[in-house]
C-alpha cells in the first residue's frame, strides 16, 4: 500500500433538495490494492456516493481527488469505471461486442487496440460466444458479465461495482467472485447487500448510514460486530456465526 491515496474524498455533502442530505460531510481515502466493500441499509447513499465519485453528480460541498486530479463533473475520465446496478442502464448498444467497444473507442484508441481489448475482456469473462448477441436477449447473469466487460475493456484503474450480485444465480455469483479475486484493477469500490460476497472479495469494509461513515475497517471485524450491524439495520453474515450454537431454528423445529 502506497502512502498516496488513489481516491481522496474530502468532506463532501449532497442532497436532492435543500432540506435533505443524502451524503453528509463524508471523507474517505482509498489506496492502491484496496477492495472496499460499501455496506449499509437501503437509501443510505451508496449509489449517490458512487455517482459523486465518478463525476456524474456534483457535491454541494467538498471535493473529490482521483489520481491527484480533481474530479470534474460530466467529464469523461477513463481512470474510473462503473458497473451499474441495473445492467440495462449500461448495455445500450445493439450488440455485446459494440457495447464493450464503446468505452475504448471513445478513448481514441486504434481499431486494432479496441479489437484486442474487447476480445480480451470477453475472453477473461468467458463470454466470447455472446459477442454478436443483442443485450435484451441475454440472461441476468450474462448481462452482468457483459457490463463488467465494458468497464474492463477501458482498463480503468478504479472500478466501482454497484450491487454486482443482484439478480445473479449461484453459478454467475461464483464466476463474479473468481473474476474479482483475480482481477488486476488498482482499486475497487463494491456496494452490496450480499455480505457473504463482501467477505469473499473485499479487504476493507465501510459501513454507511444516513450519508455518513459509521465504521471503517477489516471485513471480519466490521461484519462480525453483531451489535454494530444490528444498530444499522444489518445482520451479521451467516458464515461468521459459530456453528457450535444451533441457530437454524427452522431445522430444529422440524426435527
Amino acid at each position, binding site marked *: 500500500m502506497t502512502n498516496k491515496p488513489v481516491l481522496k474524498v474530502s468532506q463532501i455533502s449532497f442532497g436532492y433538495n435543500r432540506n435533505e442530505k443524502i451524503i453528509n460531510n463524508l471523507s474517505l481515502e482509498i489506496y492502491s490494492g484496496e477492495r472496499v466493500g460499501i455496506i449499509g441499509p437501503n437509501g443510505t447513499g451508496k449509489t449517490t456516493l458512487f455517482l459523486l465519485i465518478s463525476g456524474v453528480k456534483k457535491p454541494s460541498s467538498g471535493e473529490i481527488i482521483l489520481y491527484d486530479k480533481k474530479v470534474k463533473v460530466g467529464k469523461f475520465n477513463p481512470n474510473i469505471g462503473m458497473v451499474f446496478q441495473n445492467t440495462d*442502464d449500461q448495455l*445500450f*448498444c*445493439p450488440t455485446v461486442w459494440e457495447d464493450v467497444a464503446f468505452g475504448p*473507442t*471513445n478513448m481514441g484508441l486504434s481499431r486494432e487496440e479496441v479489437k484486442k481489448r474487447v476480445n480480451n475482456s470477453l475472453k477473461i469473462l468467458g463470454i466470447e460466444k455472446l459477442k454478436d448477441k443483442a443485450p*435484451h436477449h441475454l440472461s441476468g447473469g450474462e448481462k452482468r458479465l457483459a457490463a463488467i466487460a*465494458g*468497464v474492463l475493456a477501458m482498463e480503468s484503474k478504479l472500478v466501482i461495482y454497484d450491487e454486482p450480485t443482484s439478480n445473479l444465480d449461484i453459478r454467475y455469483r461464483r464466476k463474479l467472485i473468481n473474476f474479482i479475486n483475480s482481477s488486476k484493477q488498482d482499486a475497487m469500490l463494491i456496494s452490496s447487500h450480499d455480505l457473504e460476497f463482501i467477505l469473499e472479495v473485499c479487504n476493507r469494509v465501510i459501513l454507511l448510514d444516513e450519508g455518513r461513515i459509521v465504521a471503517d475497517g477489516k471485513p471480519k471485524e466490521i461484519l462480525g460486530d453483531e451489535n454494530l450491524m444490528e444498530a444499522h439495520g444489518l445482520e451479521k453474515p451467516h458464515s461468521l456465526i459459530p456453528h457450535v450454537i444451533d441457530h437454524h431454528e427452522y431445522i430444529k423445529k422440524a426435527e
Partner: protein
Amino acid sequence: MDIGLNNLNPKLKIIGAMVLAFTFSFIKSIELLPVIFFISLVIYYLSKLPLSLLLKRWIIPAPFVILMGLFMMFFSEGQTVLTIGYLSIKKEGIYWALTIITKFLSILTIMVTLFQTTHFIDIVRALNSLGVPAILTDIIIFTYRYIFEIGKQLNKMQISMRLRGFRNRGLKNIISLVSLVGTILVRSYEQSEKVYNAMILRGYGHKESVKQDLKLCKSDILGVFIVVAISIGLITVQIGLSWGGF
C-alpha cells in the same frame, strides 16, 4: 460471383433501393408497369426470401391501396366504361388505379427486400455513413434497443395488474390505464437519464464516432451497375414513350 443480395454492402443496398424507388415512381406509361413489377419480383427472388413473407407484407397496406384504387376508378374524369347505379367506372380511372397499385407494390417489394436482407442496425449505420447525422442514428439505435425493455416492463405491469384482479372494462378502467402509461413514461424518463450517465462515464461525445468503411467487392460493383443500368433504361424508355418516339 455471388450476386445474392444478402451479402451486398448495406450502404449500396440503400442507394440501390432509393434509385429504383425513384425510378419506379417516375414511370407513367401503362406499358412499363408490368416491367417494373417484374423487376421488383426478380430482385425479391434474388434475395432468396420466401414468397409467403412478401404476400404477408403486401396484405397489411392492401386495404388502403385498394380503397384508393376504387376511389380513382369511380371519381376520375374521362370515358365511362361501366355504370353501376349512380356510379360509373372511367377508363382513365382504371389506368390511374393500375398505375398506383403497381408502383406501390413494386416499391414496397424493393423496400421489403432491403429490410429483410439487411439487419436494421446495419441500415441505420449505413445511413450514418451516407451522411445522416450521428445524433439521429444514435436516437434510432437507442429506440430500437430500449423499445424491447419498455415492452417487457409494460408486459410485467399488465401481468401484475391482472394478478390483482384487473379486468379490462373499457372506460371504467381509464384511471388504471392512465396510471400504467404514466408509470411507463416516468420510468422511461428516469432510465434515459441513467443510460445517459452510463454513456458519459464511458466517454460518449468525447470522440467523434467512427463511420463505417466502404469496402466494395466485385458483387457490390456489379449490383450497383445493374441497378443504375435498369434505372437509366426505364427512364429512357419512359421519356421516349412520353414523346411518342417509341
